[in-house]
């Protein structure tokens, strides 16, 4: 029981990484299916649809980012593992949640926007610039969540608890 704080902190990092990662995996997979369909008709559109496919992939990276920062704050990466109080550990957990949850859901919905944009590009390739913006709109919320998680973690670290 002595180091429950550490356990919760790592749980938080895990949440950020796996929820956001899952969302991106689902999203990129979904968009990939649509992209592959377009390429069977017209292989020249490969680079365009590939970009659209990759758009929901960023949440996974943001999740990794938060997980990494949280882990490095616990000191587990350097193998030192300093003591973390239970309260502080729970705070880390809470700080990681926005990225995990919003990352999961936004990646999924961004993928749906991506799929729609891929079919847009299939029909009107010259509208690629606009097609790219629709999925990017969804990503804003993942970025806001990333921001909240990031600021929380760096804030929690400084607390004398």
């Amino acid at each position, binding site marked *: 029981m002595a180091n429950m704080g550490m356990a919760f902190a790592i749980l938080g990092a895990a949440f950020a990484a796996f929820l956001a990662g899952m969302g991106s995996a689902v999203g990129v997979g979904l968009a990939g299916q649509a992209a592959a369909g377009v390429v069977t008709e017209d292989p020249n559109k490969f680079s365009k649809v590939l970009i659209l496919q990759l758009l929901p992939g960023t949440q996974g990276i*943001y999740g990794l980012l938060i997980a990494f*920062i949280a882990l490095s704050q616990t000191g587990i990466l350097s193998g030192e593992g300093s003591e973390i109080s239970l309260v502080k550990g729970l705070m880390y957990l809470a700080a990681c949640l926005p990225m995990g949850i919003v990352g999961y859901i936004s990646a999924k919905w961004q993928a749906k926007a991506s799929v729609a944009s891929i079919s847009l590009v299939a029909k009107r390739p010259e509208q690629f610039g606009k097609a790219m913006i629709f999925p990017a709109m969804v990503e804003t919320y993942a970025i806001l969540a990333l921001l909240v998680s990031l600021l929380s973690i760096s804030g929690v670290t400084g607390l004398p608890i």
Partner: protein
Amino acid sequence: MAVLQMQRINICALKKDRKAILETLQRRGVVEICDLSSQDNAFQKDDTSDARSQFEKTIVLANQALETLDVYAPEKSSLMDMFNGREAITTEQYQTYAQKAPEIEKAASEIVSLAKKVAENKAEILKLQAQIDALAPWMGLDVSMQFSGTRCTAAFIGSFPEQLNLEQIYEKLAQAAPEVTFHIEIFYSSRDLTCIIALVPRQQAAAAEEALRGMGFAKPASPPKEPPKEYQAILERQITDAAQIIDSATETIASHSAMREPLHFLVDYCTMRMEKYDAISRLLNTRRTFFLSGYIAKVDAPALEAELSKNFDIALEFVEPTEDEDVPCLLRNNKFTEPVTGVLESYGLPQRGEIDPTPIMAFFYYFLFGLMFSDFGYGALLAIGTGILLLKCKNMEPGTRRMIKLFFFCGISTAAWGIVFSSYFGDVVDIVSSTFFGREVTIPPLWFAPLDDPMKMLVFSMTLGVIHLFTGLGIQFYQHVKAHNWYAAITKVILWYMLVGGLIVFGLSTEMFTSILQLTETLPAAVGSVAGWIAAIGAVGIVFTNGESKNPFVRFAQGLYELYNVTGYLSDILSYSRLLALGLATGVVGSVINQMGSMGGNGIPGVILFVLVFLIGHTINFGIELLGAYVHCNRLQFVEFFGKFYEGGRRKFEPLGVHTKYYKFKEDN
């Protein structure tokens, strides 16, 4: 450096010069020809759709031939070729090729028919192979499958649909027809097929056949005349023949590989002529003259006028377009700003009265892109890579060159921001020095490291956002002033400056706001109250002026709704926090990769591991972050920046020109 002014050009000339004049226009590529509708009977239009569909057919044929050549005589191509544009072709080459066009077309149809022959024979071989396979069970038979017996005996050749041995067959036949004397030979047997030949005395043939039928005996379908072995030999000979035909046909196709260039030419030649004929169909003709109308950029007009009136008897006229005409848009920019026009085009070209935002946008584009990518290593790689491409491939297509240039400038900006924030492939300097040299070296950032002080970076990002947005508003102001619409300039821009600017300054004077942003200083309360009053005046002004309805109550309600847009400014400013998020993502993911690489420790295996992880990891990170920076930079321009002043969506100027795929046709002069 801006939207070019367009003029309407009207040409009236003799019909005998029509071809030459159109070719001149096509070569120059500066005139967009309008489709004229004929209003009276004096003029008529030529229908060129037949000729055009003929060209289209030729293009399809030539493209088929080219595809065939690519299969049977593939051409080596390197990655660099992707960036190399079309080859230039001289006028003499053009003339010789143009004379040979019918020959080339004949060669194309020969190649296509050869390819068809190959396909047919391949199908034939498959069919023959299937016949040979079907023959396999009967190979044990040394008489013809049609053999029906001698003078005194009747022979039955066929199969049972199950596996039977000799004993079982005799037993069953004895039960079915005890009076018949059978002589049975099994020459093939598998799990679901038993092939036999049965001999019986001729007078018992009918009874024997009935007995066999009762057991499910079936004769082979359409048996060949020859005994199976001989027939197989015949089939095999046919296969060899077909294979030979295929070989010779493919060889002939491969020998045509020199036709590739002429075929490319043919495609281009037909495309050009198609474009010309399309232009012809837009003209108005009388018996001896024709009339052409179109748009031309004002700057290009004198040169064209000089050339045309020197060579032809021609009546030329340039007119300013009227207000309600659908005038196309052409932009021309300098080397630094021009790369961004591609991004602008993908959003939409400026409407009438809107200025070309490219120069201002270009500056912000490079600036913000660099801030999001912000790594010296990645930026240097990007700039050097695209720089080499720009130097090596002189012949690049304008569109590709523009894109590459865009990334070149973005790369330089990225590298610069990398130095400011001390990011060199993440933290490769620290990791390498501490892992392999035992002494940690850190390159200090020129300003600060965002990961150490994210709040500072956030404030910086949002400050940039405010500047970007206010610049956009400023452009709107300029546009209103240019249109002499001072009322709109004040109500739509100045009042908003007052409201948003006032609110920000007011916020900075309150303790709460500055402590959220972790700023050390708070503006004096006096400044805050002045700013608050300015914001209030702005807000009241917006409520009373921004509505558009005639009904005062509705107008007031509309004004209130417009005031609500202030939340839009809040979300726009917050949106710039992506500068922080993406900037950090590059650095942190880079650090993760370096850390993973350093897990092997010091020593040779450690170094190998580090190099491997470094190469793979940073390649992936480079790609993903590049994509992210590109997409989000576009978004900031399109949504936040353009939202303040820009509508866009005008038609692009599409002049009659040479839109070929393989060759450039050089001008003589």
